[in-house]
């Protein structure tokens, strides 16, 4: 018990046998040789902010700190000697007790589970069990820590439901994979090749990569390789010297130099003329650009992100794209899935666009009727997210703060196939269906809406013998609406 000052032995708990045997000693155990004066072992345990319990070899409680007492809700002195499983009340204790797999030679074992505390709450926990050995290395008990991981679990839930990276939205497994890659991809300086159909969000992904990268403070310069003629494009990309060609009245830096310390996004790279592909290749090799009319190269620290909706391998086979450029760009390839392959994302994007576009257009948030929703969910979006966005924008503009029904959707969508027929057949009684059920002819899809409406009014009037009241009822309109529309179409 006495401190040896010359060669201090390792810190020990005074009278460990009495403590580990679970006896309720009158004198609390102390730690000697750590400081000049012994310190209270219980006091030390109670200072620890995670639950700590010391168990004997029979997994009975020897010491339990205040944190764990508060956590489990058991605060009695009688806890000493009680079976650990009875106090912790954790599924771990009953099904896969870590103390059972811990042995002298093993390290700590960590298992996650849950416990039911005295307040009858089920709390997720992480139990770490480590063997306690005496000075001869013989196991005399276990040290277990119990951590409340409810906050972590909540965060896990948030992470697993994270469906957004910058402005890209998606919850499908395909998009989740991309969201997982993007942050690490952004941190590198490698060239990225983004492929995918039109409207899949290639531009947004490129911008997201830039915004999440170390170059975010630098410029993000975008150029469409298919939008300009070859000669202009060369000047745009690489710049020119004054007098390089007729009309070159001053020096022009070019997009590469403008993107210095930032990112250059080359969209529609598949449409880049062969001659410029060589120049781009040179830049990728040497990180230097040669402006038109200049013999001196200019260094530019630029990250290249390229995108195309074309099949570059096919273009290589057709000798329209250089194989070596493809290999240089194809360092990191990111393929964005078409919307039709992103299960569950259509609904998510619909909700998102309904929210954002309603606000942008200054309209009330419109809801989709079940049939309109069905129609939108089953449509094959060849234009992908861009097309979906446009459809929602159209519908919000047309519906006029009311519910969006199938008739508020663009006509090409309704003509697209069987979906329209099924959806319309199941539409709850509304203006159009009343007529259909009444035996009136279904409006032909190639007609304009005003013509259809006029025809509906005429047929309704004929059917009820010209009585406007009844016609309005059969159309599902107020009498004043019918009157206004009749006036608009010059009926009666």
């Amino acid at each position, binding site marked *: 018990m006495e401190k040896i000052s010359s060669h201090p032995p390792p810190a020990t708990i005074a009278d460990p046998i009495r403590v580990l045997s679970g006896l309720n000693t009158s004198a609390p155990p102390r730690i000697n040789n750590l400081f000049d004066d012994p310190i209270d072992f219980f006091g030390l345990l109670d200072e620890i902010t995670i639950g700590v319990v010391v168990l004997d070899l029979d997994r009975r409680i020897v010491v339990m700190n205040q944190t764990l007492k508060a956590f489990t*809700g*058991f605060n*009695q002195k*009688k*806890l000493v000697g*009680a*079976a650990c*499983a*009875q*106090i*912790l*009340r954790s*599924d771990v*204790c*009953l*099904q896969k007790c870590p103390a059972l797999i811990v042995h002298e030679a093993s390290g700590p074992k960590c298992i996650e589970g849950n*416990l*039911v*505390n*005295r*307040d*009858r*709450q*089920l709390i997720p926990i992480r139990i770490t069990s480590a063997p306690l050995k005496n000075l001869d290395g013989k196991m005399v008990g276990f040290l277990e820590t119990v951590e409340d991981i409810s906050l972590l679990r909540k965060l896990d839930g948030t992470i697993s439901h994270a469906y957004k990276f910058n402005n890209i939205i998606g919850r499908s497994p395909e998009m989740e994979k991309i969201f997982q890659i993007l942050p690490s991809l952004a941190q590198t300086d490698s060239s990225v090749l983004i492929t995918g159909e039109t409207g899949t969000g290639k531009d947004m992904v490129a911008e997201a990569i830039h915004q999440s990268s170390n170059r975010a403070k630098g410029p993000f310069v975008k150029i469409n390789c298919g939008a300009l003629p070859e000669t202009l494009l060369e000047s745009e990309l690489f710049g020119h010297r004054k007098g390089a060609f007729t009309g070159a009245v001053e020096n022009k830096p070019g997009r590469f130099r403008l993107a210095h310390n930032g990112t250059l996004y080359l969209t529609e790279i598949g449409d880049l003329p062969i001659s410029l592909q060589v120049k781009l290749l040179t830049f990728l090799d040497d990180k230097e650009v040669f402006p038109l009319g200049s013999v001196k190269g200019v260094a530019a620290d630029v990250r290249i992100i390229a995108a195309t909706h074309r099949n570059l391998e096919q273009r290589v086979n057709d000798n329209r794209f250089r194989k070596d450029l493809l290999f240089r760009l194809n360092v990191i390839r990111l393929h964005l899935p078409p919307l039709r392959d992103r299960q569950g994302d259509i609904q998510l994007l619909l909700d998102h666009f309904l929210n954002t576009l309603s606000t942008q257009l200054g309209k009330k948030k419109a809801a989709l009727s079940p049939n309109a929703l069905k129609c939108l969910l089953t449509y094959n979006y060849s234009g992908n997210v861009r097309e979906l966005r446009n459809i929602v924008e159209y519908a919000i503009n047309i519906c006029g703060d009311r519910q969006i029904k199938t008739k508020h959707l663009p006509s090409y969508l309704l003509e697209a196939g069987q979906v329209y027929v099924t959806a319309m057949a199941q539409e709850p009684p509304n203006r159009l269906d009343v007529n259909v059920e009444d035996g009136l002819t279904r409006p032909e899809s190639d007609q304009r809406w005003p013509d259809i409406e006029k025809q509906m009014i005429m047929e309704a009037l004929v059917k009820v013998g010209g009585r406007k009241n009844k016609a309005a009822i059969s159309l599902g309109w107020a009498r004043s609406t019918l009157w206004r529309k009749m006036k608009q179409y010059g009926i009666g």
Partner: protein
Amino acid sequence: MGQKYPVAKNETIRYWLTMSIKILIPLHENDVAPRFDLATEVLIVTDVGKTGSGEKRMVVLPRASADQLCHLIITEGIQTVICSGIEDDYYQYLTWKRIEVIDSVIGSSQSALERFIEGRLKPGDIL
């Protein structure tokens, strides 16, 4: 208050003498199971009031499930459940069904039963 307590105790004793109480204890080996939802065995004790220690019956459950255990408690007409850890949802459900739940009882099922018969068992008892 001093006068009311013996009256209440007498009433309890009278209740046991006249009624047959049916108790259920979820088991883990010979102890009260630490978790209601993880118990795969239960002890049902009937006619506690009539025969003193009552008639005991062990029921082995097909799997651990708090829902199934609640169903068993209801269908068996259990009046008192002695258990340890029980989630609040199940506790509230059982008490709503007018079943007395004495929870957080730690110790052997025999000691818990004995103490219950003596009228001394309280929630949170470590036996």
